[in-house]
């Protein structure tokens, strides 16, 4: 389908990308999980209108898509911050005192259990149940970078370095 340039709105482009993703998965409702993963990769979260769009395109009910999107921990229905800080709270990290690290990170960024993204959308702090790097417990993963044998002080230092580099941009 060709669209005259004047008609290409941001909204239009948004759904074009979703369309591509759905086509890549053969419009197969059985591929709902990988489709949502790809959509989230694109938008960093799952916007509500996109979920409805996915449901309509796959010929399934929005309730089923919403059900899957809310069931799995990886899917976020709200936008995440630019940098994701994931604190591992698996058994090994827990017995090596991961919670004080979480408390220190939240205190530094003014976050709480209820609010895990900073107002400036720079950081999201989450806990994960295990990253499988138990030999290095306690572990903090900032974006894709794994930091092992952390302490509250070291974790805050990592965050402050990112803050400094963001400010200098």
């Amino acid at each position, binding site marked *: 389908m060709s669209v005259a340039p004047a008609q290409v709105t941001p909204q239009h482009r948004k759904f074009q990308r979703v369309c591509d993703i759905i086509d890549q998965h053969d419009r197969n409702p059985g591929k709902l*999980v990988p489709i949502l993963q790809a959509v989230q990769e694109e938008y960093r979260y799952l916007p509500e209108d996109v979920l409805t769009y996915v449901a309509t395109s796959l010929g399934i009910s929005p309730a089923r898509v919403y059900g899957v999107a809310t*069931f*799995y921990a990886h899917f976020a229905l709200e936008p995440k911050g630019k940098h994701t800080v994931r604190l591992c709270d698996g058994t*090994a990290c827990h017995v090596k005192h991961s919670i004080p690290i979480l408390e220190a990170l939240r205190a530094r960024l003014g976050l709480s259990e209820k609010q895990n993204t900073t107002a400036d959308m720079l950081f999201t702090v989450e806990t994960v149940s295990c990253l*499988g*790097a*138990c*030999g290095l417990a306690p572990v903090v993963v900032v974006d894709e970078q794994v930091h092992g044998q952390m302490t509250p002080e070291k974790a805050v230092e990592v965050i402050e370095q990112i803050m400094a580099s963001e400010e200098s941009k």
Partner: protein
Amino acid sequence: MSARERAPHQTVDLEAMARAYEAAAGRYPRRVVVCAGTGCVANGAHAVIQAFVEQIAAAGLNVTTEVRAEAHDADLRLSKSGCQGFCQQGPLVTIEPEGILYTRVKPEDVAQIVQETLIGGKVVERLLYAEPVTGQRCHGTADIPFYTRQRRTVLRACGALDPEDILEYISRGGYAAARRAYTELSPQAVCEEVTFAGLRGRGGGGFPTGRKWDLTRKQPGPKKYVICNGDEGDPGAFMDRSVMEGHPHSVIEGMMIAARAIGADEGVVYVRAEYPLAVRRIRKAVADAEQMGLLGDGLFGTEHSFREEVMEGAGAFVCGEETALIASIEGKRGMPMPKPPFPAQSGLFGKPTVINNVETLAMVPLILTEGAVAFRSVGTENSPGTKTFALTGHVANTGLIEVPFGTSLREVVHHIGGGVTDDAGHPTSQGFKAVQIGGPSGGCLTEDHLDLPLDFDSLRSVGAMVGSGGLVVMNKQTCMVSVARFFMRFTQTESCGKCVLCREGTKQMLALLDDITEGRATLETLDLLEKVAKAVQKGSLCGLGKTAPNPVLSTLRYFRAEYEAHVVQKRCPAGQCKALRVPSIDAALCKGCTLCARKCPVGAISGQKKEAHWIDPDKCTRCGVCAQSCKFGAVTGV
């Protein structure tokens, strides 16, 4: 590659590939292997690799990172391996052919390694592992007790091979077992051999793998599936991650053999999304195997086909349960289904399906190449073979180990693990309190169980289970009630909500544990907790709910006194439960500097200058500011 492009009778010549590889690799016997498992990468292995590339070039040597068929000029080979297990000592660098193992290598050490070892042929003593008690330096895996006391089969390959090089796997006899299954054995014979070997599922339950296959084989219908369960959600376990990252082709080959046994032509590897490296390596391995014609149509010149797909999980612990995992692959919420029908009868898309754990599948090629008798010769009568365990927590050598079933806990913790450590990480001889085995489904083992053989049946008899194999060692500073609470919070969050008793019961149990750790409980709370626990066990459909109460029941059984101290004396013996701590200032250590009194936000500290201070426990909020500000370590209990 499709059957049309490649004639079905034309088969892959594994031996010729292996010979070509050996001949090419033989040109550079000198090899530097840097461990690139998740642990070592987090410790900076990539920077070490980069440093090697630079330093080797600076020294005027030629380095290659791949084995190429055509002759080219290289003095040595630099490669990455999967997890070598000794995560605590990473990044690990092995120098072949001498087998020298350097530990905790930093980029700045590399220049010395290049000059002294690679050029000078001498060992850099300071980078060798030092035995903590004697201080003696060990040269490599052949004399480090952590390795010599293990029996590494699957894991040995993990640490030695380049996981991204399919030819190296083939050169070590890879895919020969799959070829034997397709060209020499009938599906029934494959099932019989695996049954005779006594292989039991490594994912937790310990169900005989051969029997599972045979049940699926007997189901009618042309369409069947094989699923590899790599959804290792158990916190504190990472052996499946390491096998997928370090030895991905063994998993693929195991799936091919399973497919032959049951008559499947499609397979799915379901990998936890928290393991990006494992996802990448498995994807590459599947693509390489397809390109070689090892996966696809006309396998080994037969009319059989087998294809594999890799799917990432989306973060739900319950998907480790097989029916929930199937629902997840079908694009639904990962909720378990009642059994029967078992997946063997009606699994993925309603077709007969075999689901095996990663480690189980990785063992299968070994059974077919070395024989069921050899496999049975290790381990115990009812639990043959070896098992990998993720050894973590308060232990000197954290990492990944593999031992025969039946090895005692003492051997694992004190000899391989190098003993218990205190909170500061220093070895302590009197520190052992418990081992938590099997994660949120498992239980605790105490000092009395140190000589218990680790196998499926012995562990079940004491209320624990092998589970996926997470072994978390805990020292005396660990509060067992908070450990139980930790697992309960985990299972409560991960309960899918289908069964009322699991959904509501875990919530209530968590609330009761909160009461205990926050000083609101009585002795009746303990009875109620036990009652709810037993109800949850009985009233849940799947393994998650059935086993969720295990950590609580097992800590209640072995550490009841600790629970009682929490509820009767309102005291946490380990001093971990914040709400029960009694804040105090050690008069002998306090210098009367008044810093804590000035810092205290609620004015709970009083005292005269240069005299010992004290804390009013009623005013104190346990915020900990005083303890942080005290330069003399006089404040305790906050």
